[in-house]
């Protein structure tokens, strides 16, 4: 499970670094970073075997939600599990993310335990 390659998408440099550090500490050594939906989509094309996507919602150029919809509608990447990691935490947001096709939802600020638990749960269910 720890050998899975994770694509971490967030426009905040700080958050990308926190995600990468937390993932590495949890044993996920293969982390690819992207700064928005467009960058993430490009990374998805060039990186081999991305096994999980963690994406922020509010980002410039292409939002996390748009990116999720794009991935879900793609025949090649449509089944890659996605976890939304966002500060948005009202029920309609969660429902919208679920409708778009995310597999799980993490509210910021998150704890390393929550991140690890959600990743393990999502990976074990695919």
């Amino acid at each position, binding site marked *: 499970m720890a050998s899975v390659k994770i694509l971490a998408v967030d426009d*905040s440099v700080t958050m990308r670094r926190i995600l990468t550090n937390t993932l590495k500490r949890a044993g996920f050594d293969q982390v690819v970073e992207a700064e928005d939906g467009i960058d993430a989509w490009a990374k998805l094309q060039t990186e081999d075997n991305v096994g999980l996507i963690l994406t922020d919602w509010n980002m410039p150029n292409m939002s996390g939600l748009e990116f999720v919809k794009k991935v879900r509608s793609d025949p090649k990447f449509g089944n890659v599990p996605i976890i939304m990691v966002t500060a948005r*935490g009202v029920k309609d947001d969660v429902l919208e993310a679920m409708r778009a096709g995310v597999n799980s939802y993490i509210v910021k*600020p998150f704890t390393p335990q929550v991140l690890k638990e959600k990743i393990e749960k999502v990976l074990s269910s695919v």
Partner: protein
Amino acid sequence: MTEQDIQKLVQELDQVRSHVLIFETHLPDIIKGARTHAKAHLLVFKDSFPRLRHTVEFAEQVVPTIDRMIRIWPEKAGSIPQATSNLRKVTEATEMATTEIMDVVDGITEQIEDLKARLQAQRNSLGEGIKSVDEKRQKVEACLGDGKGPKAQVLKEVVQWQQSLESTLGEWGRTLDEVVQGLEGINDSLFQILNALQFQDITAQQIEATKAILAELNEEIKALFKGFTQMELGGRVEVRRGTFDKQANYDRKEAKRKQRMADQIFEEGSERDAEKVREEVGEMVSQDDIDAIFE
């Protein structure tokens, strides 16, 4: 003047006379109507007058304020782009400072990991040393047997010294274990510091949301005072649309509550069920509501 002209004039005079007679007949009514109307208007005016007076007084009070607004607000509005620029600098500065902190934390973590590895190697070496001393002590004890005499006495002292050495080495080993544990604790604390730096992302979103409000205010003021002042009104306020959640908040307790709500929706497994939960629980879920559902 001919006779024909005179007759024509007489006819015209008759017409005038006729009109005057009609006018005379209706004059009282006209005057009465005019009086009634005038009275009604006066009554209305009488009722309105205090309000009109108040309006004038209010205008007298308000006009200087409006005048002051026209003079000052455009000037203040001009400072909104500067204020938002300062807010942007705050975000940049906190991002930079956070990166510096993360660099330091990463550096310390790396040093601790290195130190831990070296101490662990020493601990392993010490363990082997203790084992070796123990083996030698057992050999000496075997040689000693029930022996007596000066040589046996020396061997007994060697055994005692070996026991003392084993005890000391054992103590060192336990201290090393404690140090390694302590270093792991420091590493955990550093990791918590790193995790707490999520505040930077969230406050950056809050600042961006504030900038968006100021941008709207800026445009409203510009529209309001356009035509009232010759002053150059403030420039555009750049906001990174779509990059922030206006409700973003660095509140662990609140995040935990929202996390449980999100988990609950996902656990329900379908949108229909999630909608049902929404109907049952309402728009904003309280901890009591969540507890009630779990019960």
